[in-house]
């Protein structure tokens, strides 16, 4: 096998590429963002249909903890989705900067857990265990992880149409976004607003989905 290709190979390649030219529609990030927003709405409706809206919804909307939960999860979804859409443009290299954000968030997690444990009623180990309600927690993690899968599939389709130049980070961002979208869509169905519960179980779900996406997606989105 010769190391140097025969002369003219690149010329023939260019001929072939020109012959293969067909009109294409330039990508628009607005369209991708709209598609993700629609997926979020569909996910919320599906959660309401499948699990039902929580019974105490009228009371929950008057409480700060509910809105804190909703805002945090929407923020996760928004940051992740923005990162994914931006990463599809080869000209943009913003993902490395997001790593600092991710590190900061990871460092804040234990702090948030500690704050959550101190805040709210009930001290002592039994009270904490009761607040964590691990049966409900596992169910929440399972729901978020399962409903993140269709969102992740949609994101993979979007990503394959784009040109991500950092597959590992795009994959992690897609996992983060899909978990955020799935969790935010679940906000009106899950009856738990306790910051301790939310930080631990939703945080765990986001971590699991992000990690799985980081491991599995890169081979699907290379080009």
């Amino acid at each position, binding site marked *: 096998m010769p190391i140097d290709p025969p002369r003219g190979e690149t010329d023939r390649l260019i001929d072939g590429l020109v012959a293969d030219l067909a009109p294409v529609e330039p990508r628009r990030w607005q369209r991708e963002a709209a598609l993700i927003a629609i997926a979020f709405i569909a996910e919320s409706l599906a959660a309401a249909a499948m699990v039902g809206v929580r019974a105490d919804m009228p009371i929950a909307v008057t409480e700060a903890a509910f809105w804190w939960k909703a805002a945090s999860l929407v923020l996760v979804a928004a940051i992740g989705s923005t990162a994914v859409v931006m990463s599809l443009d080869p000209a943009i290299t913003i993902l490395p900067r997001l790593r600092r954000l991710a590190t900061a968030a990871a460092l804040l997690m234990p702090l948030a857990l500690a704050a959550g444990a101190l805040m709210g009623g009930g001290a002592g180990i039994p009270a904490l265990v009761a607040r964590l309600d691990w049966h409900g927690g596992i169910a929440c993690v399972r729901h978020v992880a399962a409903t993140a899968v269709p969102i992740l599939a949609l994101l993979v389709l979007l990503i394959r149409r784009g040109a991500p*130049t950092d597959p590992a980070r795009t994959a992690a961002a897609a996992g983060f976004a899909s978990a955020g979208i799935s969790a935010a869509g679940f906000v009106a169905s899950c009856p738990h607003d306790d910051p301790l519960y939310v930080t631990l179980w939703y945080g765990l779900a986001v971590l699991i989905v992000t990690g799985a996406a980081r491991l599995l997606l890169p081979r699907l989105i290379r080009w």
Partner: protein
Amino acid sequence: MFAAIAQDHVSGLAFARPRTPVRVVTVATSSDEAWAGLMAAAQRGEAAPYRRLLAELRPWLVRYFSRRLPSAQIDDAVQDTLIAIHSKRHTFEPERPFGPWLAGIARYKWIDRLRSLSRHAADELPETLATGDHENAVTSAIVLQGLLAMLKPAQAEAIRLVKIDGLSIEEAAARTGQSESLVKVIFHLGLGRLARLVEAQADAD
């Protein structure tokens, strides 16, 4: 000739400070606008502007990769990148500059090449000897040389001897006084690290 104006400024000094490499790849403004216009026409399916675009991108890419890869890899990298530009042409948004889009794709394919060099290093070794003229490669792969400076000395030496100077593993082993299997391992580790270094550079941008 727009391609003649196209510049690929690479700061050689950047590597004097390995922790904060500054890598600026620019396309001269006049060719950037012309290339954006040609690509927009190509997106509408016009063959003549597309052919002109590819013909002008080719020397830019040859230049880009000749600073970053051993000479035997340049043609393949240029072809890979042309194919990538073709299959991802819809991701160029006509109202935005063309240069960063092009540079992003070229860099992605560069990392790809370094990766595959590292993966297939063992299979390619016996043939490296046959590539002949390496005088050029040594002086032109400036960025590659800069990156080698960031590796551990033994790794850099192994890569320099085998990939750039074109020695065989046996010769490199004789030159460095190490066993062949050790040179092979060092060479392999070095190439893998090289690919990761290039990827990590974006962090410092």
